[in-house]
């Protein structure tokens, strides 16, 4: 699935549809969500105070451990663990976790790609660090998706329903109490997207 291979916004009035398409694009961009979303469909019905959204996510990868992003090497003689970074994007999370465990005083960064940790038990610590979870993109994605949904919805629609399961996300918002059929409609939109998004 390509990112945003289906991007549909439906509304009774064409111009309003365009406004919301732009709002959704802007919010996707500011939350850096566009690469994570495969298919998205939004239906607007201002006369019923209703906003429905269905999203199918792309594979966003699983949990990231240190060994996925760096080489870890124990240096028993020097009493050090050397970490050579391969993927720079996770450095903030990695450093955060290392600081928490070893303290800032025991960690040095001789250059951009290297982190050195001073420790008494290099071998054991190296083994631990290798398996340590650095980041969980799915967790971050969930937070961002909910944030995105709230930002894209018209502000007054404060009664909300959301479902996040596997790679599927459904969001319904309204000003009135939610009706069952609205949620079912959103579910149907999701089915439609799953089948390849027949318009």
């Amino acid at each position, binding site marked *: 699935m390509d990112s945003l291979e289906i991007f549909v916004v439906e509304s009774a009035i064409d*111009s*309003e549809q365009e*406004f919301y398409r732009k709002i959704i694009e802007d919010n996707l961009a500011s939350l850096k969500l566009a690469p994570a979303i495969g298919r998205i469909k939004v239906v607007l019905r201002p006369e019923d105070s209703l906003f429905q959204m269905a999203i199918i996510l792309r594979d966003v990868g699983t949990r990231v451990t240190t060994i996925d992003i760096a080489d870890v090497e124990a240096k028993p003689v020097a009493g050090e663990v050397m970490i050579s970074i391969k993927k720079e994007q996770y450095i903030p999370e990695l450093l955060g976790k290392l600081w928490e465990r070893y303290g800032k005083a025991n960690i040095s960064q001789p250059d951009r790609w290297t982190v050195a940790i001073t420790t008494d038990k290099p071998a054991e610590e190296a083994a631990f660090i290798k398996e340590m979870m650095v980041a969980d993109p799915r967790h971050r994605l969930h937070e961002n998706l909910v944030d995105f949904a709230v930002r894209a919805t*018209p*502000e*007054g629609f404060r009664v909300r329903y959301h479902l996040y399961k596997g790679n599927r996300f459904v969001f319904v918002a309204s000003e009135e109490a939610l009706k069952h059929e609205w949620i079912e409609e959103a579910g149907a939109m999701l089915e439609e997207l799953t089948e390849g998004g027949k318009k």
Partner: protein
Amino acid sequence: MVVLLPYLYTGGVHKHGLLIELMEDLGGYIIQKVVTGTEVNLIMLIPEKDIDIVKKLSHELLGVLMEAPLTGVEIAVVSPTLASHHLPHSACDIAEYLRHPGANTNMIGLARGMGRRVSLSMDYERKLINEHDIAVFTFGSFSDCITKKKPKLFEGIEIPIVVTGGPAELKTEDVPGADLYIGNIGRVSHRLRRTEEINALDNLNEGVSKIASEIRQQQAKDPLAVLPARVMKEIENQVPEIRRVLSPAPLTLQLDGLRVKLPYDEFHEKIEKLEFDEGVVLSELANISRSKMKNYILIKIKSKSDVGFAI
């Protein structure tokens, strides 16, 4: 009576004092002076017959002098709430753009303005909005909301109402209660910078200027007992504490009065007793009351017909 015209000078800080001195000599007024780094913006009221002299001096100083039709107008930019749906775009963009022609804008976010059925405004908010000269309501993208649901927010607003919204095809008549509708400025999540968006902002400035000049024409039929700019100058001379106020516009001019950004309880008597050369005090010429905004002082000048004379 001298006709004063509003102008904005933009130029370097170097020697801009000459301009201020010239304004004193000519009998004009400096409404606001904003220094940013090495740049200075002066908003001023210049006597009509002396404009050429000021133009010549600003040319010598390598600055730019342009007309600022919204000088001395205080505008309320009202957005349904202060949530991220409206801020910083588009409400801030609108407020900022209205300042280009010299207006002072205040942003007001209603507590419960969002939504269709549930939107409402409070008595306090309406009174606060009514203290301004013009209210600009920034609405969203649905024409259904703008024409049917949101106009209830206009109830109790006595000043001219300008509405901005997304749909370009709506007309002013379609929005009940509005004096002007400007399209193409709906809900956006990016900075307004595309051609049609800037055009819409220009339309807004033009429309608001027109409303301001209509108010001025109405006023000319029964002029104010004293010019707000003159009251401003007297306050600067007689209430030295105003110099220590850190707000960007300690004295904010309005079309029919001014807002003094000093605490009411401490200073209202001083303001009421403000003396003019003609021997009258301000309380004879104006209503002085507590502003809904932060306990400031609000001066609304009476008309000549009310007072019986004008100075």
